[in-house]
């Protein structure tokens, strides 16, 4: 069983942007999406079966009480730019995937799988996240 850690209030989230949390020594970037992909958009059509299960976990864990807010948690460290900056990147959808663009050199990281779109060998950690009673909770024990 994952251990859920209380991080901050829903009010602390920045809509359509990111914040950074320190969770048991790890820097975790948390993004919240207010803008939703509308029906008719292709979603995650390019991810593998393994990734798909991850997405299922992530989906089920998010947006429980947050109404229409979709949240994601990934590592804050940009392995290409080598700095703790990803929470300050822009969030985007590229070919239906929800991604963050690094503010340093603009590589895109899939928020559900952590995989870098420009170099599939590079991956950042992805954490389960949920919203409970207007509180944001993350589990870091077993990074996905």
């Amino acid at each position: 069983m994952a251990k859920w850690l209380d991080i901050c209030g829903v009010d602390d989230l920045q809509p359509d942007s990111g914040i950074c949390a320190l969770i048991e020594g790890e820097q975790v970037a948390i993004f919240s999406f207010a803008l939703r992909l509308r029906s008719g958009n292709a979603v995650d059509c390019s991810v593998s079966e393994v990734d798909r299960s991850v997405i299922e976990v992530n989906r089920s864990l998010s947006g429980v009480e947050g109404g229409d807010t979709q949240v994601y948690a990934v590592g804050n460290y940009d392995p290409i730019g080598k700095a703790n900056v990803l929470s300050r990147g822009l969030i985007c959808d590229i070919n239906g995937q929800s991604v963050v663009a690094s503010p340093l050199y603009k590589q895109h990281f899939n928020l559900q799988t952590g995989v870098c779109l420009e170099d599939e060998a590079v991956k950042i950690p992805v954490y389960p996240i949920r919203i409970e009673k207007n509180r944001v909770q993350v589990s870091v024990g077993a990074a996905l």
Partner: protein
Amino acid sequence: MSVKQTLVVIGNGMVGQHFLASLVESAIKEQYQIITFCEEPRAAYDRVHLSSFFTGTTAKQLSLVEDDFFEQHGITIHLGDKASNIDRDNKTVTSAKGLTISYDKLVLATGSYPFVPPVPGHDRAQCLVYRTIEDLEAMAAAAKVGKVGTVVGGGLLGLEAAKALMDLGLQTHVVEFAPRLMAVQLDDAGGAMLRRKIEDLGVTVHTGKNTSLITDGQQCVNLMCFADGEELETDIVLFSAGIRPRDDIARVCGLEVGQRGGIVIDNQCRTSDPSIYAIGECALWNGMIYGLVAPSYAMARTVVSALAGGSLSFTGADMSTKLKLMGVDVASIGDAHAKTQGAKVYTYQNGDSEVYKRLVVSQDKKQLLGAVLVGDASGYSTLLQYCLNGIELPAYPDALILPHRSDESVGLGPDALPLSAQICSCYDVTKGTICSAIEGGCMTMGALKAETKAATGCGGCSALMKSVLDSELSKQGFEVNTDICEHFAHTRQDLFNLVKVERIKTFADLLRRHGKGIGCEICKPAVANILASQWNDHVLEKDHLGLQDTNDTFLANMQKDGTYSVVPRITGGEISPDMLIALGQVGKKYKLYTKITGGQRVDMFGARVDQLPSIWKELIDAGFESGHAYGKSLRTVKSCVGSTWCRYGVDDSVGLAIELENRYKGLRSPHKIKFGVSGCTRECAEAQGKDVGIIATETGWSLYVCGNGGMKPRHADLFATGLDKPTLIKFIDRFLSFYVRTADRLQRTSVWMENMEGGLDYLKSVVIDDKLGLCGQLEQQMQHVIDTYQCEWLTTIEDESKLKRFRHFVNSDQPDDNVVFVEERGQLRPADESERKHFKLAEMA
């Protein structure tokens, strides 16, 4: 190993220089030691644009020679020394200063001299010619004491000279012997139309006048008496009645010359002595002297080929011309006078808009033989291609000169042209060359110009080149996709217009109406930028925050380690000692690395995101405001100290720089914008390397636009001269607003203009002449931005909700432990990776 031969070039005018430039690009240059004589005190300059000397272009700007050209290529130039004699038996050249040099090969590029008719009194005071920069200086001196100027000669050069007299502020007359202006190129009706247009500009034209005497005037220095008994009082008499080849040096040494002058050459440009070549206006080929640049350049290239044992030959040249005379478009192609047997003529005349067009076609109406265009020369390129390539005319040839009032296109599509068709005559670039450059990856007009040089001379072929580019790209299967990204099927300019017309205030609204998905790092900042240009709300408002690039989000510039740099505005680079101290105190307190920027301000590095608000609070308390170094916006207005202190200063450059920086600060634009203001033409502020550059002159401000430094430096273009401050500001308002409206995302002003059809001239017509009727709107758009300016940092530190973001962790006050500094030269800098490891080990120990 062979010893180098000596190649001597007599004359360093446009053609002599083009020969040298072509020669040094060929491998053959290694075989020659090159020596050139230049009679004038300066090396080659652009005689074609000589009249721009009077609208602010300097002798240096007219120069065709890069500063270190001669040294770089090991060419010896004897400036201000005239080659006076050739000894063909001993193969030596002797100069006026007594130098004697042996040659193996000799190239004569002696050019021509202005013909002065042998009228009694032609050598009186203020009787001048128009050919060299010294001539121009004599004209300027004469214009200071006179009021009236008269050009003798109503041809191409004469009308250019008349423009020069107008620019000097003289009451201007043109006297022409023939019954019409431009008698060689135009027919009667075309000449009459040109005359009307030029008279509208205030020039008095006298045709059919034969000057018989020049003598003392009563109100003016000179009185011109004509054969028909009429007289004209004038101070300056400027002879521009044609050119004569300078062949005396060839004549004396026994080379064959033509009956009416000109050194006889063959198809390889060889004279009657096989070691001697002649090129340009001094050369006579097949009984013809070519007084145009393009054929002369072709001769120069022919000689380079001949020296290299190549097979290029000069076989005559098309004398078609298109030019703007005093703002009037005039073009002449081929057999304009319908001298060909059986030629048929079509004419179109529009008295209202003063346009005249004439087509001359073959008897069977299949071939175009010639054309005359006055007032609207837009059809020139198409007609010239028909004529030069023998392309069959449409069934009704007059369709080519009749105005098109519907969407039907009768122009010649680029696909109809053969690969050998010459697109750019200035640099002799064919359609084939352009197509292979496109295949080689040149996908924009800017790239094509850089690669092929086409359209960088007179620019007259740029529209045709653009159509070749578009057609080739689509043929190669490139969809010319100008969509900004996958979320909007629109260009930046489209989005700007949508935002403006539909009064859209948020990204979400624009996305809902015109886009799809949720956006990306391309469209979000671009739209944020457009919204800021149009409505100018604070960039950290709730609706805009998520759109901004990190620099805009934190109003600072992110550096490689995730820390930020801070740049307060220092308008015009002027700062008091107290402010400088305050800046130093903040830097010291927060241990910031401090460096002076190229834009005359101070950049302070190493601020953590959580430190930014307190740093800015202190800066604002000390009187600073945001420098917008983080935005795509106006950065700095660099200035020299100007007339306030400088011994040479002509005007107050610092004062103007501060005024301009305060006016445009905060303006969001497609890319960063930099200004420079210099107080005199010594140009210490390097204004000509900026998007907007201003230089003080005795007659007012000169405005330059579309320059930049960076990876591809570009000299700015002269836009307008002699401006007073209100006019200057009006032009800049319009220029910037038009750029903000129409440029692509991240497109600097230089590339924007280079990709614009019509380029600089078009831009001038929009900004100066209000061709699009848009200037009122453009000024209003700028005024709104100016009226709604706010210091983004002041607004931010006063708003608790905006400050919430300025912390590294949402749930902890700790700073980022990955930010590690080491000391270097007395300041901090980010640790590199090996230092970082060392630091971690030390920490663990």
